[in-house]
C-alpha cells in the first residue's frame, strides 16, 4: 500500500497540482483535499500548497488558516502527522500558530521570482531527513510577502534549538531575519518554507544546473523524506 499524502486546495491555490505531482514523483499517492471539508480522508501527511488563498485579503494565509479543514490539519499536526507548508502554506502555518514568527512584505517592496540557493540546516525533520546536513540545494522562489520575522526571543530559541530548517545562501531575497527560508516546530513534523520544492522535481522543468538547463530536481527529496519518515514509523 502506498503512502497517501493529502494536498489541500483553497480558493486561490496555485500550486496544488504541482504539489500533487511532486508527491507522485516521490513515490507516494497524492490525495486532493478541499478547504471546506472537515475530512483529511485518512492521509498520512499533508501539504499546504502555494498560491494566494482568498486573494491574500486581510493577511497572507490568514483567512485560509481559519477554514474548516485547518482544524483537522492542526489536530493532525498535534498528533505528529507530517505537515508541509509551501509559500502561502507557510504563511497559513504561522497564522494557525503551528509555526512561530510571521511573513511580511519583502523589504525591497517587489515581487521576486528566481532560482534560489538554500542550505539545509536541519536534517532531522520529517521533510528533510533525506538531505545531508549543510547540503546546498537550488529551488525556485516566488513571493511578494516572504520576509520572515519573529521576536528576538523567538529567533534566539529557534536558532538555539536548531529549528531553522532552510537558510538563504548568496542573497537574502526578501529581508528575512537571519536569512531564514524555512522553520520547523519542536517535534519536527511541521515544516514551512517560502521557496517551492514542488517546482524542482522533474528534469526539464526545474532550475538550471551545471549539467543542463532546467535539470534541477533538488526539491524532490523533501517529498521523498516524508514518505521515508512514514515508512520508518
Amino acid at each position: 500500500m502506498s503512502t497517501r499524502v493529502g494536498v489541500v486546495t483553497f480558493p486561490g491555490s496555485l500550486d496544488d497540482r504541482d504539489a500533487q505531482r511532486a508527491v507522485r514523483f516521490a513515490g507516494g499517492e497524492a490525495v486532493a483535499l478541499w478547504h471546506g471539508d472537515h475530512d483529511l480522508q485518512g492521509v498520512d501527511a499533508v501539504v499546504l500548497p502555494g498560491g494566494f488563498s482568498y486573494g491574500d485579503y486581510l493577511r497572507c494565509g490568514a483567512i485560509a488558516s481559519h477554514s474548516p479543514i485547518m482544524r483537522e490539519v492542526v489536530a493532525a499536526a498535534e498528533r505528529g502527522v507530517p505537515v508541509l507548508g509551501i509559500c502561502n502554506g507557510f504563511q497559513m502555518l504561522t497564522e494557525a500558530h503551528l509555526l512561530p514568527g510571521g511573513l511580511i512584505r519583502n523589504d525591497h517592496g517587489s515581487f521576486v521570482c528566481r532560482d534560489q540557493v538554500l542550505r539545509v540546516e536541519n536534517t532531522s525533520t520529517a521533510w528533510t531527513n533525506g538531505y545531508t546536513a549543510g547540503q546546498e540545494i537550488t529551488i525556485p522562489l516566488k513571493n511578494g510577502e516572504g520576509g520572515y520575522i519573529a521576536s528576538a526571543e523567538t529567533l534566539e530559541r529557534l536558532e538555539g534549538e536548531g529549528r531553522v530548517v532552510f537558510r538563504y545562501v548568496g542573497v537574502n531575497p526578501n529581508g528575512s531575519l537571519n536569512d531564514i527560508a524555512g522553520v520547523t516546530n519542536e517535534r519536527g513534523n511541521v515544516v514551512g518554507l517560502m521557496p517551492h520544492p514542488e517546482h524542482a522535481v522533474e528534469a526539464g522543468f526545474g532550475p538550471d544546473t551545471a549539467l543542463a538547463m532546467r535539470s534541477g530536481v533538488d526539491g524532490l527529496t523533501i517529498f521523498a523524506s516524508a514518505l521515508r519518515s512514514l515508512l520508518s514509523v
Partner: protein
Amino acid sequence: MPKIVVDVMPKAELLDPQGKAVAGALARLGNTAFSDVRVGKRFELTVDGAVDAEVLASVRAIADDLLSNGVIEDVVDITVLDESGAHSGAGASGALA
C-alpha cells in the same frame, strides 16, 4: 446603525515596506516635511443593534484573533461611532484596544 472601528498597525519595531514606498513617493514629489510613513488597516464593523459590553468584548476578541496577527501587528485602537458617525462615549477611548 452604530459602527465599531478597529485600527491595526504593523509593529513599530518591524520594517513597513509599504510605508517606506509611500515615504519615498512623498519625498520624490517634494514633500520634505515628513520623516516617516507607516501604513496600517482600518476595519469598520457595522453593528446590528446596540453596542453593549458583550459586543465590545467580542470585537476585542475578533480584533486579536482574526483582524490582527500579534506577531507582526498591534491593535492600536477600537472606537465606537454612533449613527451620525461621531465618537460615542461608550468606547471612544483607545484604552479599549
